[in-house]
């Protein structure tokens, strides 16, 4: 072959040198060079090709380099085979390991999905970084209180005053109403009244209609697809006309799809807001949103809002000695911002997210520790195998890889099972924890999370045993000596302590939380909560005929008492300002409305004076009952409080105090007792019935019949008081459930770890025990001997777990004004320690008993 200089192709020579056996290279090269010379001297066709044919033809098994050490590759290639072989050989313990791990992973996966859906709230809005909500702050200097609602004029005024910063504004207001289409009518509770630009301002998905058109007209409506199906079946909803509250007709212009993630607004029907009176500054109830391009501009606007409020409310502030400011809150912060008054949006609890995250990590740790303990216990059976491998030249790194490969296989198996179990248990989980977790497997962050979780657990759970086992000294093992040093046992004991610690912590926390929940549910609130049902006064037919409606039940034996009220105990109480005639200064007070049967229906005791009198015209809007707290706040005593006068200017009321009630817990037990005034007046929102608890069903039937007579158009909406009270503690109840479920799992997993350690110990000391028995020890003594160290481990774990749990629960209880005393619940800590100890002993007992009663000849026969 020729190149330009007639030289031999250098690459072909390099190829030969690289691939062929060194002792053959000289000869082959020589032949090729000579061949090359020949061809150069007697040119033939295709000489270049022919040369290469010779070169390549030299590359054959007889000439190619042999791989230096033929062991590594086959071992690597057969790795999976070895792995599966050894896993199958370990049988039961492999299954325990895989199942234990899957169980942990199921919890982690489920919690991941839940937390993920909580944290991605409102992230689907295109302009999520630019959207802000207006919050009012009452009494910013003295006693700041955030208020979620604003009135109609805020939005246009904001846009007018800051045209350069604020791109656009929109308003929305949650509502409920009766919606009718032909013969179908339902009370819709998730209606949103919204400005025409609502769908272009936010990015809620539409199946039909264009975002800037669907609400353009004053009578336009958008329905969620499920709601549309409810009314129109399979017909096309677009253009259909629905009637709202039997008054206004709306035309359906668009259909909404499911939201891609959680949102702080929850609605399935949107109506154009224009029929509301939106011009009054004091008519609050709207959510006001503004879109601002950059955070800098938002900060600028935020700084100007004090002046904005003075501009529009200055007069009012002066005359009423009252201050209020405005603040723009970023959209992404709304969902977790709890504790805002009159907040009509959906919230999640960041606290719960933290707790669930911590629980997930704890479970994962337990599962990892378990894996470590079980596989080290298992390593014993493999000590000889490892030793033989090493003697035959398997080197340490490769053994480590092999063992890591086994861990990875177990992990992958476990993950597959976990995914299956998660799918299977998903509805049960959701139901039990009352969550709406959606399994979103296509989420790319899940992949990253899953992969990093796998790598992390592989490192945490796989690396230590792999390193430990592969570093066994083959000589010692084959001689029959110990295969592991004291240091390793120490590490494993620490792992078990950590597991016990988590388990004890979980049990103590669970017990204390459920104790608190029980306390809340059974605490004497100062009023009756059983067998009270409340109907919403949702239409004029009832509102205008209240007396007649109440009268209709006069003869019912199962209905003990009826009251029309605005603000039932634990229900919504407005906050207003009260002052005494002739005295300067106003004070904050909670206000409610009740009629003459209010205190009787709710079983509230009077301390002094009387309740409202029936049919006493002079009473209505004129008389009030206050609680003891209010009496103290206003500076009265039981002797001088009755017949005193008080002024509530915002309601134009000048009332006479006719009675003082016990302090009853009219709001959640998370709050301290506050002053309260109940006015005998008619601003009722609900009718409460005290029923005969033995005949609830028939009483409810009666009420429903009468309701239909009075208000045939409107379905009856009712709620039992004890249930609505329970809703106050929904978050805590969820947390309590989560804790009890996961503490059970953590105990189970921890016991598996203990089982592993017990197996290890019993085996390790087999000979010693045999000799002890030969020398006369009884089975009990042997069991005692083996159990002693576990007592110490549990003791150590308790020592750390109890203060931690104490601290945690103390923080958790901070939310409650009324709480249990942790100190007086000390038996709970004792009990959790003992419970863990008990379960651990059962587990250990199973193993040690066998070791203790076994025939000593079995264990000391071989030496």
């Amino acid at each position: 072959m020729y190149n330009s200089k007639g030289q031999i192709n250098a690459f072909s020579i390099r190829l030969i040198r690289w691939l062929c056996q060194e002792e053959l290279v000289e000869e082959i090269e020589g032949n090729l060079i000579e061949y090359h010379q020949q061809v150069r001297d007697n040119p033939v066709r295709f000489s270049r090709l022919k040369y290469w044919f010779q070169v390549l033809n030299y590359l054959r098994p007889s000439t190619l380099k042999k791989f230096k050490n033929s062991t590594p590759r086959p071992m690597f290639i057969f790795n999976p085979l070895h792995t599966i072989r050894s896993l199958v050989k370990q049988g039961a313990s492999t299954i325990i390991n895989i199942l234990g791990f899957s169980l942990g992973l199921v919890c982690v996966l489920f919690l991941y999905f839940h937390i993920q859906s909580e944290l991605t709230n409102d992230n689907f809005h295109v302009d999520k970084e630019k959207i802000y909500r207006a919050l009012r702050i009452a009494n910013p200097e003295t006693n700041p209180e955030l208020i979620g609602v604003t009135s109609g004029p805020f939005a246009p005024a904001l846009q007018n005053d800051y045209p350069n910063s604020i791109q656009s504004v929109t308003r929305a207001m949650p509502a409920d109403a009766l919606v009718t289409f032909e013969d179908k009518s339902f009370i819709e509770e998730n209606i949103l009244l919204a400005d025409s630009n609502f769908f272009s301002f936010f990015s809620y998905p539409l199946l039909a209609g264009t975002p800037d058109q669907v609400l353009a007209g004053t009578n336009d409506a958008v329905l969620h697809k499920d709601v549309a199906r409810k009314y129109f079946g399979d017909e096309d909803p677009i253009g259909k006309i629905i009637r709202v509250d039997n008054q206004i007709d709306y035309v359906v212009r668009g259909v909404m799809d499911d939201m891609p993630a959680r949102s702080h607004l929850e609605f399935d029907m949107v109506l154009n807001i224009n029929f509301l009176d939106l011009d009054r500054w004091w008519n609050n109830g709207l959510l006001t949103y503004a879109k601002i391009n950059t955070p800098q501009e938002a900060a600028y606007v935020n700084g100007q809002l004090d002046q904005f409020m003075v501009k529009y409310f200055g007069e009012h502030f002066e005359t009423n000695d009252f201050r209020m400011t405005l603040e723009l809150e970023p959209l992404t912060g709304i969902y977790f911002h709890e504790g805002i008054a009159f907040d009509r949006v959906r919230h999640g609890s960041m606290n719960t997210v933290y707790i669930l995250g911590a629980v997930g990590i704890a479970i994962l740790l337990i599962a990892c520790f378990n894996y470590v303990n079980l596989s080290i216990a298992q390593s014993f059976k493999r000590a000889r195998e490892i030793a033989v491998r090493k003697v035959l030249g398997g080197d340490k790194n490769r053994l480590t890889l092999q063992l890591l490969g086994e861990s990875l296989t177990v992990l992958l198996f476990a993950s597959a099972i976990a995914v299956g179990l998660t799918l299977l248990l998903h509805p049960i989980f959701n139901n039990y924890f009352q969550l709406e977790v959606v399994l979103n497997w296509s989420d790319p962050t899940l992949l990253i999370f899953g992969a990093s979780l796998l790598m992390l657990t592989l490192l945490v759970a796989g690396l230590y045993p792999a390193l430990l086992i592969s570093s066994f000294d083959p000589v010692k093992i084959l001689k029959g000596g110990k295969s592991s040093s004291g240091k390793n046992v120490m590490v494993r004991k620490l792992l078990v302590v950590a597991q016990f610690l988590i388990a004890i912590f979980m049990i103590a926390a669970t017990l204390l939380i459920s104790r608190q929940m029980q306390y809340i549910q059974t605490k004497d609130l100062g009023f009756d909560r059983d067998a009270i049902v409340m109907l919403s006064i949702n239409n004029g037919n009832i509102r205008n005929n209240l007396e007649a409606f109440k009268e209709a039940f006069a003869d019912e034996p199962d209905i003990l008492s009826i009251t029309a009220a605005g603000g039932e105990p634990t229900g919504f109480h407005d906050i207003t300002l009260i002052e005494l005639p002739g005295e300067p200064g106003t004070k904050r007070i909670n206000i409610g409305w009740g009629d003459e049967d209010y205190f009787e229906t709710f079983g509230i005791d009077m301390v002094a004076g009387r309740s409202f009198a029936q049919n006493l015209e002079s009473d209505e809007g004129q008389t009030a009952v206050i609680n003891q707290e209010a009496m103290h706040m206003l500076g009265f005593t039981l002797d001088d409080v009755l017949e005193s006068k008080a002024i509530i200017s915002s309601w134009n009321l000048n009332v006479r105090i006719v009675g003082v009630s016990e302090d009853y817990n009219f709001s959640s037990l998370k709050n301290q007792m506050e002053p309260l005034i109940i006015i005998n007046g008619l601003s009722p929102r609900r009718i409460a019935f005290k029923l005969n608890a033995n005949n609830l069903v028939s009483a409810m039937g009666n009420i429903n019949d009468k309701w239909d007579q009075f208000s045939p158009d409107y379905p009856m909406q009712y709620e039992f008081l004890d249930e609505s009270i329970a809703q106050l503690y929904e978050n805590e109840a969820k947390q309590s459930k989560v804790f009890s479920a996961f503490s059970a799992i953590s105990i189970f997993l921890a016991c598996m770890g203990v089982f592993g350690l017990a197996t290890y110990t019993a085996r390790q000391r087999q000979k010693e025990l045999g000799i002890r028995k030969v020398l006369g020890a009884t089975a009990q003594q042997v069991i005692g001997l083996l159990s002693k160290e576990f007592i110490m481990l549990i003791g150590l774990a308790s020592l750390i777990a109890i203060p931690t749990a104490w601290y945690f629960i103390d923080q958790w209880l901070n939310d409650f004004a009324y709480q249990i005393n942790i100190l007086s619940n000390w038996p709970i800590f004792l009990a959790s320690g003992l419970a863990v100890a008990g379960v651990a002993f059962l587990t250990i007992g199973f193993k040690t008993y066998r070791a203790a009663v076994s025939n000593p000849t079995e264990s000391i026969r071989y030496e």
Partner: protein
Amino acid sequence: MKGTNLGEFEELVLLVVLILQDDAYVLRIKDEVYSQIKRNVAMGALHSTLSRLEKKGFLASEMLGATKERGGRRKRIYQLTGVGKQVLKDAKEQRQMLWNQVPDYAL
């Protein structure tokens, strides 16, 4: 070790090595095979046959004779061992014996 039977190509190679005597190295063998019986064999193929024969003990080899046209590289000169010669003779005799029994009219 494989049996002492010779394959057709192996027998051919042994004979060529015997003919070439001190000049029996791969390229020369290849050329000889081509010029005598018009068979084009790759050097690689020859190499593996030769080393197989060497493994069977029919051939011995030695690195000798660096020349200029080989870029100073030595060549591996093959030589028949006693066993090799014996096997070759046996093969020839077997054939001869068989040939002798073929009746004249059969061809």
